[in-house]
């Protein structure tokens, strides 16, 4: 088949910025069949398959793209699904520009093949086709417990279930999905899509128990007593960091976790739901990651007139996905780079009135390799706001670590694992995702869940010998 020489990615239709900034519907609408086939034809099918090496879950990218080019969409989906438990999610939220697409040879002279958009297309086409029920694998008689139903846990559960394990996933809150449900907003990842992905895991036999806070209602030891032969801990990094500055106790200061959970999980933006949400006029979001972008764009959608991203480094240092930064700008979010908060100011009623900030300049690289921000003395200025959202990261929840003997953690509270096997310092207990790395991405967590599933399988098969 002739290669499509088009230098740019086939554009994906999106809602207009002015329109979407006032609703929670998905921003990007996805490819049509013709767009997908056109884009798929841009793939060179390199022998060395560099894109695959950029994928943490090893999706056989050129194969599924070839299937799309041949209009075998279900085949493409099955190719992705063979190594990726959540294709519709990854197609939407992966930082493709730093993974698969960064390795694409087409990206040297022009834009890389839009691998993420094609993955999404294959997954969405499969979902719309309402294909036959998945076949339940033959049970192998072994039980594994998975703690946490976020991307790491779901991937680990899916992979083990496909190998015939009887897998039970324990979720602390009332809905499965973890950060995919409470963190990432509807306009970026529709919740019906997450639930469809989870339903397809249930179809292959994964049991999900919600409202189960492991460490409280059951301990890891009790899970072993109940006959689970291995436990995977994928409980994420759920503990929000605060700014540690004066005035943080003022009303109107909250973690991005709280703000996003009210909106995404509890649907506070919809009239028929009971959970309340503050609708602020002027919002400062502190941080430069995807969570900061999500919070800022949500604040805009709730009607804020001014939404500021307050970030202490420069635009190039921002960890957020390029597309999120781009979308946020289009929607009118105002970026204050090289700006750091010093204190939150409030009125007599204890409500936020302003965020005092200082200017920063970039110095030499720090431990993370990024240039260290240095405060410009005497540059203090006030930003008039009535809400401040801290989106400066999360650390792992200590609940499991503190209730399970033999689990070592580092000084940031992250579980220590053997990187070869993902086994923790306790036999039979594996861990992966943010609980090990600290807050990172959906796809890295999925990669870890996949890796752990392989090790758990080897461990349990090894025990039988």
């Amino acid at each position, binding site marked *: 088949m002739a290669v499509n020489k088009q230098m740019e990615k086939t554009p994906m239709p999106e809602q207009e910025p002015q329109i979407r900034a006032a609703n929670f519907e998905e921003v990007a609408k996805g490819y049509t069949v013709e767009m997908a086939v056109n884009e798929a034809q841009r793939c060179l099918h390199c022998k060395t398959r560099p894109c695959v090496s950029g994928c943490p879950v090893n999706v056989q990218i050129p194969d599924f793209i070839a299937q799309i080019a041949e209009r075998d969409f279900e085949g493409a989906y099955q190719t992705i699904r063979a190594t990726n438990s959540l294709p519709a999610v990854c197609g939407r939220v992966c930082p493709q520009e730093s993974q698969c697409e960064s390795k694409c040879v087409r990206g040297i002279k022009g834009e890389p093949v839009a691998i993420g958009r094609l993955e999404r297309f294959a997954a969405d086409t499969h979902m719309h086709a309402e294909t036959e029920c998945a076949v339940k694998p033959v049970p192998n008689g072994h039980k594994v417990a998975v703690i946490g139903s976020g991307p790491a846990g779901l991937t680990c559960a899916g992979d083990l279930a496909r190998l015939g394990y009887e897998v039970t996933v324990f979720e602390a*809150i*009332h809905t499965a999905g973890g950060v995919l449900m409470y963190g990432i907003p509807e306009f970026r990842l529709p919740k019906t899509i997450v639930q469809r992905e989870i339903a397809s895991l249930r179809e292959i036999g994964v049991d999900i128990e919600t409202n189960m806070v492991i460490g409280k209602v059951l301990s890891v030891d009790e899970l072993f007593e109940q006959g689970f032969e291995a436990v995977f801990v994928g409980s994420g990094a759920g503990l929000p960091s605060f700014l540690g500055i004066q005035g943080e*106790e003022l009303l109107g200061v909250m973690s991005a*976790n*709280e703000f996003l959970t009210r909106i995404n999980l*509890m649907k506070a933006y919809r009239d028929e739901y009971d959970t*309340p*949400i503050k609708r602020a006029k002027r919002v400062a979001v502190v941080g430069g990651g995807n969570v900061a972008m999500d919070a800022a764009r949500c604040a805009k959608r709730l009607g804020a007139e001014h939404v500021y991203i307050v970030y202490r480094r420069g635009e190039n240092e921002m960890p957020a996905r390029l597309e999120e930064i781009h979308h946020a700008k289009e929607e009118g979010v105002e970026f204050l780079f090289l700006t750091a908060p010093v204190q939150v100011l409030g009125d007599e009623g204890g409500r936020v009135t302003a965020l005092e900030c200082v200017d920063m300049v970039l110095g030499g690289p720090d431990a993370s390799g990024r240039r260290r921000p240095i405060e410009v003395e005497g540059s203090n200025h006030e930003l008039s706001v009535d809400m401040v959202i801290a989106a400066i990261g999360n650390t792992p929840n*200590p609940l499991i670590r503190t209730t399970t003997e033999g689990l070592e953690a580092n000084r940031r509270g992250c579980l220590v694992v053997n990187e070869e096997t993902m086994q923790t310092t306790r036999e039979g207990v594996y861990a992966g995702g943010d609980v090990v790395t600290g807050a990172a991405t959906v796809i890295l967590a999925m990669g870890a869940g996949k890796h752990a599933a392989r090790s758990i399988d080897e461990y349990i098969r090894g025990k039988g010998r």
Partner: protein
Amino acid sequence: MYTILHKRSLNPSVTLMKIDAPLVAKKARAGQFIILRVNETGERIPLTIADHDAEKGTVTIIFQKVGGTTFLLDTLNEGDALLDFVGPLGRATEVDGYHRVAVVGGGVGCAIAYPEAKALHAAGAKVDMIAGFRNKDIVMLEEEMGAVSDRLYVMTDDGSNGNKGFVTVKLQELLDEGNAYDLVIAIGPLPMMRAVAELTKKYGVKTLVSMNPIMIDGTGMCGGCRLTVGGEVKFACVDGPEFDAHQIDWDGAMKRLGQYKEEEHECNLMKRFGKQ
């Protein structure tokens, strides 16, 4: 689903429910709480566990109709079920090692003071209990509290039961009489707990209070329940809900509790139930 096995009205605004939740019942300890959600569109609200029966697999909750969700909850009857019921959350009360304890409950707070008194009593402490209500018509759990305390004092704001005065009046009287408490536990509205804290501070008696701030997940994820204790930020859900009353920033806690007052009034539930 978590079925309501028993429902009883304790006074016109306070209801008791026994919920079928065997796993929670098995682990529950005094001082811990649950989070429930009535239905799909409902909020998650925390309620302290009022009692539990591990054998029968039941957890008792007692709530006052103060907002949309508690009004909605009160419309449910025996045989109905709650959509979500998660727990036990938070740290349990340390009950060992105390000899003389005063447990102070204010209004619906008595529902939580009662299991504390029960646990301390069972652990061998001599328990004096002071329960305060606005008037005699809304006195509740008198028999239960009497059964787990060595002395029970029921106080009314208006004196309608013959004992007029706030709980702090009685507590001060007991302290002045020379009762050497090694612990005071106070549970009730924030102003009451604060008043107890201010009183016992003068007497140098260790005092614990059970905080009930706004929460969403109850596992440390949102930080909505944070409060300042001893100059440090603490999360009531995982570090509490009980804290040293003499270390709490009471002004801050009171402001945070009122945060969503405006939204509560707008909320659908209040429109639906506001007239009751």
